[in-house]
Each structure stands twice: as C-alpha cells, then as structure tokens.
C-alpha cells in the first residue's frame, strides 16, 4: 500500500473519523479523553489511534507523563493537492473555454 492508500483506509472507518472530529474540536487530547467520545473499549480506541498515527493523520507529543494526540491534516492537504485541486483546474479551464466560445472572443 502506498501512503495515499493508507490514508484512505484510515478514513474508511466511522470510529476513526469520529476520533479525528474530536481532535478537530479540541486538539491535543489524552487517550482517556478520547475514549469519552466513543462507546468502545480503551484497547479498541488505542488500536484506532495507532492506525491513524501510522497513516500520519494523528501526531503525538508528550507533555510530562501525558501522551497527547493531535490532528495532523497534512496528508489530507496532500490528497487535496494531488486530486481535488487538479480536477478544479480542469473544470475552470473548461468553463473559460466555454466563456470564450459564447462570447466569441479571441485569445488575449
């Protein structure tokens, strides 16, 4: 699997998306805090967080003895740059071409 596959796989699970939403709401939470958002065992949450971390969607940092989890949106930005922006560009170009034809203007 390449990096993009890992990100899409990580996003494919509703519990993992819920964890990302919880971090988006409040960044830098402990495992215990994140467990409050989900009706599942601590062990299951740990596994989901591990998968999100290996997809680089979650970054962790230690504050004293507490391990804090942070939403890392950088891989999502890469997907946006790689996929979505490209399609936007071609749509804009198509609309510009249409505009030129309808208005009967020449290049420049």
């Amino acid at each position: 699997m390449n990096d993009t596959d890992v990100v899409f796989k990580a996003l494919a699970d509703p519990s993992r998306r819920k964890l990302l939403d919880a971090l988006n709401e409040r960044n830098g939470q402990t495992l215990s805090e994140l467990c409050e958002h989900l009706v599942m065992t601590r062990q299951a949450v740990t596994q989901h967080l591990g998968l999100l971390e290996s997809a680089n969607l979650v970054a962790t940092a230690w504050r004293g003895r507490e391990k804090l989890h942070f939403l890392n949106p950088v891989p999502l930005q890469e997907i946006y740059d790689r996929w979505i922006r490209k399609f936007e560009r071609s749509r804009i170009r198509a609309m510009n071409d249409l505009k030129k034809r309808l208005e009967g203007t020449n290049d420049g």
Partner: protein
Amino acid sequence: MGKSTFVYVIYIASQPQAVWNGLLDGQFTRQYWDHDNVSDWKAGSAWEHRRTDAARTVDILGEVIEAKAPHHLVISWAQPSDKARKDRYSRVTFDIEAVADMVRLTVTHDELEAGSEMQRKISEGWPRVLSSLKSLLETGRPLQTWAGR
C-alpha cells in the same frame, strides 16, 4: 481564553540539511511560501517573514529562540502590529529527523491564543506550506498553493 497547540508532521524524501535550508533560505522559501524568511538564524536574533513584492512588507516577525542546524529550530511568532505585545507571541518549533531514507519534519506551533485570528490562519497555512515544501524538495516544483488567494 486558553492557549492552544498544533502539531504537524510531514515525511519528505530528502536530507535534513536540504529541509533546513528549505525552511530558512529566502531564495528558497519564496518559491513555495510566497515570502522570504529573513534572519541570520542565531539564537537571540530577530527574524522576519517578508512578502516578495517591491514593498517587502513584513507579515510575521519574532525572535530566534534556539537554533541547532539542521535539526532543531525554535522561533517566536507574531503579527507586526503585536510587536511590542510579548504576551501575544506564539512559538514555532521545527524538528527535523532523518528516518530511513526520509526526513520527518515536525512543526509544533504552541502558545497560540485559542480562537484567535492567528490560530485560524496558521491552521490553514501550515498544511499548505508543508505540502508545497515537500513538493518542491521532491520534484523541484512547488505547488501553486497560494494562487488565487
């Protein structure tokens, strides 16, 4: 209002020194960041994030707090209008580590005033800046991430 922290991690197929230069060398940052980062990058020195236009407007400024090339850099971060308001400064830490044949770049932006305009700007900005830096280092071309602002 409390203070908040953001942590961004990106893996770049590059070398630590190249990533360090990519963050600090004005001739390089202007290609993907639309700004020059200007300083001598010594602890205690000032740094400025300047536009590349003729006016060279300063958009962000601060001080270099720690600099250990090419692995660790800590700077303070403020809007020019807050220059005299040290309580409004936030802090950015760059950690650059080699991991196998990649570089893991971690950007920690903390001491941000929760809910502030600066927090909104940086949480939109860092993912774009880092993604564009990666593209420039890996392919020789930056992303057109600031086009159409």
